[in-house]
């Protein structure tokens, strides 16, 4: 097959190209601005004994620009978010220390030995569990995303915000979570047939409380004790958090200490005033639990620089709270033409899925986009379609197609296209 057959006018190549032949790469995409390398690195590491062991390894000092971006309240340091630097990461697992954070009043310090999970309300046997006890229960692992309902919210703005991809869309992270299926604990307590909801409550300084339908709790929720193989980080809910696969982040209650079985939702502040979406007609969507199908190109993306014409790999992430990613298409001409990207396995339900497609940049201006489809047939909408349907005041649940413009200088910027 000649290269002409594989290249579309926009320069997107067949997704299998890299696998088939050893194509030569252009100089790697440079990070702008580049980071000065520490002065104390020996010129020849083969002629100097290396560093000693460490009890807990850290990233290379040369990677110190790969950080969560913090945006916190000026009066309350523990109120705000920090964003996962998706633009600097590869694969599908987010390092635990880079998992996004949303705290309402700081990260509580909790004594794991004293911590209890109480299960009460409409149950036959109200029970209390220690963390040590929960560790003895059958454990299950699942790889999946947690995405804040407010992720990507700046994209509702009239003008596109100029920042790194992760600082626009990185209130989403993906981990292997391990813990006790919630259904086991519910069965032990004996749920009353009248119960329909769980009220989940945290031991943080806002007393976070959220209502969760019982059917979901029974289906696939996990009382998570471990993230990526180690005990939960404090900022991810140590010693215990709930994982609610595919549903908005706020339901994945961290520092979980109380579960009350009820007939109806509690109507807490965070399921009425917040995490509801005001629509143009003045009505609001409430209990919008599922995180819809979404994708973005993580590389190249704003802050990266294409320093010469030639072959690049377009890389990105796609996920859906409804199931598996079925297809991701990429456009280099603002959505006029699309080519299917390769999905890199494993393709798991309610998990980040990595996609890749080679692209030959001819040095002309281009607009890069990705569009994901999940196995329920849901298609990621254009921004225009999403805004036409929902207005711009809903704040939560933004999942539209993301557009990066490449200038003739090889610089990338965020645009609405």
């Amino acid at each position: 097959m000649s290269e002409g057959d594989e290249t579309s006018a926009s320069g997107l190549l067949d997704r299998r190209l890299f696998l088939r032949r050893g194509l030569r790469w252009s100089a790697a995409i440079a990070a702008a601005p580049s980071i000065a390398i520490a002065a104390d690195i020996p010129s020849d590491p083969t002629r100097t004994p290396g560093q000693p062991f460490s009890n807990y390894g850290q990233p290379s000092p040369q990677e110190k620009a790969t950080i969560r971006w913090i945006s916190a309240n000026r009066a309350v340091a523990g109120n705000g978010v920090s964003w996962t630097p998706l633009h600097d990461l590869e694969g599908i697992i987010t390092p635990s220390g880079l998992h996004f954070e949303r705290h309402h009043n700081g990260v509580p310090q909790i004594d794991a030995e004293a911590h209890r999970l109480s299960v009460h309300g409409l149950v036959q046997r109200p029970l209390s569990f220690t963390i040590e006890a929960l560790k003895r229960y059958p454990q299950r692992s699942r790889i999946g995303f947690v995405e804040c309902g407010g992720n990507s919210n700046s994209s509702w703005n009239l003008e596109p915000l100029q920042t790194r991809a992760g600082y626009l869309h990185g209130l989403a992270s993906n981990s292997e979570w391990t813990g006790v299926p919630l259904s086991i604990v519910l069965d032990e307590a004996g749920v009353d047939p009248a119960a329909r909801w769980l009220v989940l409550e945290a031991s943080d300084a806002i007393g976070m409380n959220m209502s969760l339908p019982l059917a979901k709790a029974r289906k696939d929720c996990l009382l998570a004790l471990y993230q990526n193989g180690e005990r939960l980080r404090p900022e991810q809910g140590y010693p215990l958090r709930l994982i609610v696969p595919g549903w908005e982040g706020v339901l994945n209650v961290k520092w979980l200490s109380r579960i009350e079985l009820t007939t109806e939702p509690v109507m807490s502040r965070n399921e009425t005033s917040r995490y509801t979406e005001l629509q143009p007609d003045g009505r609001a969507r409430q209990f919008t639990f599922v995180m819809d199908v979404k994708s973005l190109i993580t590389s190249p993306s704003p802050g990266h620089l294409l320093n010469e014409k030639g072959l690049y790999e377009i890389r990105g992430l796609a996920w859906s709270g409804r199931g598996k990613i079925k297809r991701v298409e990429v456009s280099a001409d603002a959505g006029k033409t699309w080519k299917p990207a390769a999905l890199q396995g494993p393709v798991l339900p309610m998990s980040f899925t990595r996609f890749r497609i080679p692209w030959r940049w001819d040095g002309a201006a281009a607009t890069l986009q990705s569009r994901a489809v999940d196995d329920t047939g849901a298609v990621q909408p254009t921004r225009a379609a999403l805004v036409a349907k929902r207005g711009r005041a809903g704040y939560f649940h933004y999942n539209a197609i993301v557009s990066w413009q490449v200038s003739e200088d090889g610089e990338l910027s965020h645009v609405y296209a």
Partner: protein
Amino acid sequence: MSTPERLLLASWLLIATAAQAAGPGLGKPLSAADIAALPRSVFPDGRGLAAGRGTVSDGKVIYDAQCTSCHGIAGRGGSGGHLISDGKLTGADPDPAVNTYWPYATTLWDFTRRAMPMTAPGSLSVDETYAVTAYLLHLSGLIEADGVLDEQSLPKVRMPNRDGFDWIDAKRH
């Protein structure tokens, strides 16, 4: 399939289902006293509210001392966001706030009790919480200036936007 094979399969299935359905049963029973000591969920119909009372005028004193720094005078805005708005929920610049958007008054009491003021959450007494809630509901035009709020009257306060919400991924029963 031979009999031993069948038995093996049966016992394997048994283990598999047991692992799926049951844990070691290590939950400790909670007594009525234990449950009474837990934080309470406060529902729109008033279940879970602590007994107490507070006046609008006491609430203004508490609000001015403990809330204005972050929410502004009379809830008009600050680093913690505004609580009271003159705006609407429709139009070019909709402006949801406690008075225009919140469906239930009980939520205001509960959130204030568990979370505010942010620098000292849980520091307001039950009566102080009723008082500051009364003041904010007065600013919302829902209680008179000489009004009083208690666990009986609070759930009866009907917020203007109570029926403004559509449930998307959950069913009403």
